[in-house]
Each structure stands twice: as structure tokens, then as C-alpha cells.
């Protein structure tokens, strides 16, 4: 008698105990709640990373319109001069600022810098690596992204030049 995982269906043969895969899949990382600021930062870093990649591809497509002449370029630029275009650019500003600043934080933390040293754990077992020193990097990234978006919004929607 043995245990045989079967993620595709529930079928099995002989005396095998039937198992069902409990893997969360994409839903596992799409939900940033319940696990603290580091999980939120992980989620935002991925979302902004994917978003910026899509923007980068779009940006190459946009600038490549130059080869079709000035009129093609101008018509492409007009797309960003609408309210929807401005909101999209605001999101790009926020995403790129957050991704850069939080990325710097991650370069340090993932190299073992700023996450504390091992020691004898005491109840209630607050994790050393989830300290406020590295956590403040997330808040700074969010704050700077908000400031950048506000300034970008004032330039695009207001009178600031």
C-alpha cells in the first residue's frame, strides 16, 4: 500500500491512497494579505515588474513608429495626451519608482544585509529578519512612489511645468 500524489485527477489504482494536490498556484501569490508588509512588498514588486515589462514592450512599439514618419509619431503621442493616457502614465511613474526603491532594498536584504543576525529565539519569537530597519524600506518605496505620482499628476493635470 502506498501514497501516490495525483494532481490531475483523483484516480488511482490498486491499494494506493488517493491524494489531491493542495498547491495554491497563482492564487498563492496573488493574495498579499495575512502575512505582513514583506508579502505586500513581494506582491507589489511582482505586479509592478510585470506591468513595467508590458509598458517597456509598448514603449518600444510606440517609439518605433518614428520610422513611419512624424505624423505616425504624433498620432502615437496623442494617445498619451488623453485622460486615460495620463492615468496610465501616472501608474507607470508609481510602478517604476516603487520597483526601483524596493528593488534596492531587496538587493541588500537578499544579500543578508540589514536583516539581523541569528540568536537564541525567545517567546513570542518575533522574527529578526522581519525587522523595522528593512521594513522601513517598503514604506519609503511606497511614500516615494506616492510623491512621484502626485508630482506627475500635477504636471499632467495641473499647471506645474
Amino acid at each position, binding site marked *: 500500500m502506498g501514497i501516490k500524489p495525483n494532481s490531475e485527477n483523483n484516480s488511482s489504482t490498486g491499494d494506493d491512497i488517493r491524494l489531491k494536490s493542495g498547491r495554491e498556484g497563482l492564487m498563492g501569490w496573488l493574495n498579499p494579505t495575512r502575512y505582513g508588509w514583506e508579502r505586500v512588498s513581494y506582491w507589489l514588486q511582482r505586479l509592478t515588474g510585470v506591468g513595467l515589462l508590458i509598458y517597456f514592450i509598448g514603449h518600444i512599439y510606440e517609439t518605433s513608429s518614428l520610422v513611419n514618419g512624424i505624423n505616425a509619431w504624433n498620432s502615437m503621442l496623442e494617445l498619451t495626451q488623453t485622460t486615460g493616457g495620463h492615468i496610465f502614465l501616472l501608474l507607470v511613474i508609481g510602478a517604476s519608482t516603487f520597483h526601483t526603491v524596493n528593488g534596492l532594498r531587496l538587493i541588500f536584504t537578499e544579500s543578508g544585509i540589514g536583516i539581523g543576525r*541569528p540568536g537564541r529565539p525567545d517567546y513570542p519569537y518575533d522574527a529578526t529578519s522581519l525587522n523595522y530597519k528593512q521594513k522601513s524600506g517598503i514604506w519609503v518605496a511606497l511614500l516615494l512612489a506616492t510623491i512621484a505620482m502626485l508630482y506627475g499628476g500635477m504636471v499632467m493635470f495641473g499647471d506645474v511645468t
Partner: protein
Amino acid sequence: MSEETNKIKLKVYRTNYNKEESPHYDEFDVSVKRWTTVLDALLDAKSYSDSSLGIRYSCRMASCGSCGMKINGRPRLACYTKISELNDQTIVCDPLPNFPRIRDLVTDFTEFFAHHKKIEPYIHNEKVPIDVAKKDDLVEFKQTPEDVDKYLQFSYCIKCGLCYSACPTVATDTKFPGPQALSQAYRYTADNRDSGESTRFNIVDERHGIWRCHFAGSCSNVCPKGVDPALGIQLLKGHLIGITKNDKKIATLRSKEE
């Protein structure tokens, strides 16, 4: 002195794949006191309402790591979670995510233990004889308390699987060893009795290995023993890229005369 008794609703995930039973929740009304744990409540339901309820437990004191489950949306040990601290009149119990499900709240740890075994979680040291014929052949290492402090917290791991079930990378990558195995790789790397650093580096430094961890910190957030797997993993990465210091001197053996 009498203690106040409350009534709570216990919602338990039920399924039996061997009987083609579709997943559903069963509800049990349980009387609880201030100190009642989720495991106590589940055992109450099993004793007085439905004896077919599938749960796994052993020590009831957060030492064996058997009763891990998702309680109100978070992986926790049922024996270590008091109902009063959840501040909810409804307690929802699900099987641990990212583990194959056997029945009800019981999950299969085969893959999890295989990842743990793969990182060779034991002391590598060629100077120590493996075959000990006589009692006199036994030797011991000289290790200071400071040497012990470098790995002690990681050796408190009870292999309950909570970190594995909270990890967003494990959720999408079946080959990723997970926080438990990787932190144990660091535990032996930091241990100055061990000289198998390069062997373990080769095991974890691969496509689905340590670099898939992006410090979501969820493992450390749910660890019930203060192991802080995220700390071990990031320190191990630092060692791998040569940023954090690794000034380990392999411990010497105590001579028979000492």
C-alpha cells in the same frame, strides 16, 4: 473559580478522495474556555459529534509539528493556537495549503521531507570516523557557545510545514525546496562542525533552488518556533555570492586526553 464558557462555531474542511466525496465544510458547535486550543475544539468535535473527522496530532505542545493546518486563513499549529486569541466566533479549519491532501485536515508530507533530505541535513566531516567499533573510538567536537548561537535557532525547526504552506514560491514551483529545507541548508553551513558547504551550495544553487526566494517573509511570519527561515535563506544567499562573511573555522576534535 469558574471560567467563562463561550460557544463557537467550528467549520472544518471535509473530504475523502477514496470515497469520491466532494469537498465541503462541516459545522460543529463547541463550548470553549479561555485556554481552549483549536486542537482541543477539534478533538471535542471528534469525540462528541463526528468520530470520522480526520486530523493528525501527537504531542499537543508544539513540539512534534503534526497538527499544522490553515486556521482562519493562516497556517498555524492547532495545538498552539488558542481560540480566544483569534477573536472570532467562527473558526475555519482547512488543510495546509501546498501539501497534497489525504483526507479532511490530513496532508501528505512525502514531498516536503524529500526536499529536506535532498539538502543532506547532517554533519559532513571527513575527519570524523563514521564507523565506530568501540566506545573508546567516540570523539566529540570542541564548540564554544558563540559557535552554537550561529545555528541554534535554525535547529529548533520541528518540520511542521507551516513555512512551506505560506511560501508564495512553493505555491507555484513544485521543484523549489521551500523555506524549511533551505534554512536547514544554512543551519549546517553555519555549523562549524560541518565541512560540507560546497556540496550543499551545489544542491541549492540551481534553477529551481535558492534564487527563487524573493524574501516575501511569510515563512518567518508563520513559524511557531522562532526559526526565522527567511533569515537563514538570505544569509545563505549572501554566502553564495560572497557578500556576507563566512569566517567559519572547522571545529577541532577533543582528544582523549582532554
